[in-house]
């Protein structure tokens, strides 16, 4: 049975459409990634299913039932930023969360240990670093050992070791039978952690399914080649005129070329050389979520 069903949800802020008839279901026992660039509507969607935002249209159900307080008490949630009383200690903050959830206080030491904050449990929240705040928010979501967890950008603000820890924690939670719904703009994170993915762009649901399905179900016959040269602007201009090139995107210090499937790296290299450009990088990308994501979203930044 579906843990969460989102049915035709739309949300408008004045003239801005933040979500546009979004529908999907989250199967039990999955790690369900909601993937999209910044500003694509991920947090708005999570805000609606956690009842802090009102949908303009549409509905959702948790375990087949209309959303309610009782259901939210059994869902562990980290939404957008860690929200705590800054003048209270970690422990006192968790006490408030546990009381609202109707849970006993016996879980508090356990969840603090799970995120490595037990030693700092008496420190005030406003003395915490960004990463510690984020870990406290994850600890709070684990109170009462909920079967469903909702994480919005869970590794935000963490250092590389912290990121790895949280990813391990998420996978361990999933192995223990929890369903995890996770919003992220980090492709790599979704690819490493999630079993299922929904791709959102500018409020539209572009694609949804298991990571395998989304990867294999390419409707466009295209491939991605990564190139770089001394002058990226010139290279971009030249490549845009090449036959068979569908799209060119600047990504850090390289270009991602979406081109027809029959084009080879050799052809591309030759073309550039004839135009007087020496490539410093030429890399045929294997089909990853990143290439798929670029295909699906057209890869323009939405910011």
């Amino acid at each position: 049975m579906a843990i969460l069903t989102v049915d035709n949800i739309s949300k408008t802020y004045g003239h801005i459409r933040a979500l546009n008839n979004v529908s999907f279901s989250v199967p039990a026992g999955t790690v369900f990634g909601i993937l999209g660039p910044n500003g694509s509507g991920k947090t708005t969607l999570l805000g609606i299913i956690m009842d802090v935002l009102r949908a303009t249209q549409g509905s959702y159900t948790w375990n087949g039932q209309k959303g309610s307080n009782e259901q939210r008490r059994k869902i562990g949630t980290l939404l957008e930023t860690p929200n705590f009383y800054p003048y209270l200690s970690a422990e006192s903050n968790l006490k408030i969360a546990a009381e609202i959830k109707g849970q006993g206080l016996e879980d508090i030491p356990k969840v603090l240990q799970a995120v490595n904050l037990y030693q700092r449990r008496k420190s005030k929240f406003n003395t915490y670093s960004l990463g510690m705040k984020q870990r406290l928010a994850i600890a709070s979501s684990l109170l009462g050992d909920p079967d469903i967890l909702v994480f919005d950008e869970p590794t935000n603000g963490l250092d590389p070791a912290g990121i790895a820890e949280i990813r391990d924690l998420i996978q361990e939670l999933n192995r223990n039978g929890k369903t995890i719904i996770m919003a992220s703009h980090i492709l790599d994170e979704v690819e490493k952690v999630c079993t299922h993915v929904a791709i959102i762009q500018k409020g539209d649901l572009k694609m949804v399914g298991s990571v395998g399905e989304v990867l294999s179900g390419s409707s466009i016959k295209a491939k991605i080649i990564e190139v770089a040269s001394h002058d990226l602007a010139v290279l971009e201009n030249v490549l845009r005129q090449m036959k068979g090139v569908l799209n060119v995107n600047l990504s850090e210090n390289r270009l991602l070329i979406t081109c027809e499937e029959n084009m080879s790296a050799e052809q591309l290299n030759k073309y550039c050389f004839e135009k007087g450009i020496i490539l410093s990088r030429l890399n045929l990308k294997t089909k990853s979520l990143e290439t798929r994501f670029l295909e699906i979203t057209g890869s323009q930044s939405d910011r």
Partner: protein
Amino acid sequence: MLKLFKIEWLKIREYKTFWALFIIFLVMDPLAFYFIASKYMESHGGGQQEVMIKAFLGSPFVFPKVWQFSAWLGGLFFVMIGMLYILLITNEVQYRTHRQNIIDGWSRMDFLKAKLSLLIFFVLTSTAVVFISGLLIGLVYTEGSYDIFEQVYYVGYFAMMATIYLMSAFLIGILVKRTGLSIIIYFALVCIVDNVLWLILTLKNSQFGYFLPLECADSLVPNPFKPTMMEKRTVSDIALISTIAAYALVFGYVIINYFRKSDLKT
């Protein structure tokens, strides 16, 4: 409701600003009361003039008039509690904990009821302070035979005044959200807008001024030093009490209606 108050208490019991402002009320109100009363009652030898003034004003520190003074003085200090109450509401928005409380499993109404439980707490504790300090000062300074509880209804009037002040603060906090702006609006309303409107209306010999949101409560407990002959009010106490109740209901309705439908953002 008690369970909700318990959670509110967890939020505020380690909040220094809460204790600072709350203690100002709990301690300063009785201290100021005692100080004014002792100066007034014990300044002998002021001559004929002083005796006449005192005869003219009556004695605000003996039964039964001490109840009115206690309620009036409490009203002055209670403005601080109104500010504290706004702070406790707008803090939630600033910390985004109003969202978190809902995410963790409160309904929007639970959040409002929790804040209402705080309102009741402030009204009850401050009313107790007004009652106890009035009682003690009255017992100390009243001579001869007296009925302690004559005019004790002023303590009840204080409770109504405290309630409508906090309901106004509640409304401002929920609608305005920003701490600084909310407090400015609250003080502008309490100190300027309400009084200026009242003055304009009263100067025109209209009684409508007594039906203003805060003035209806203030008028229930007039300044005890103001001679009765200067009182222009002809509106009955019952009419004022009904007005307070009507405002409290309207404010409550607006708060609930707004908060239940709105997106919880900062």
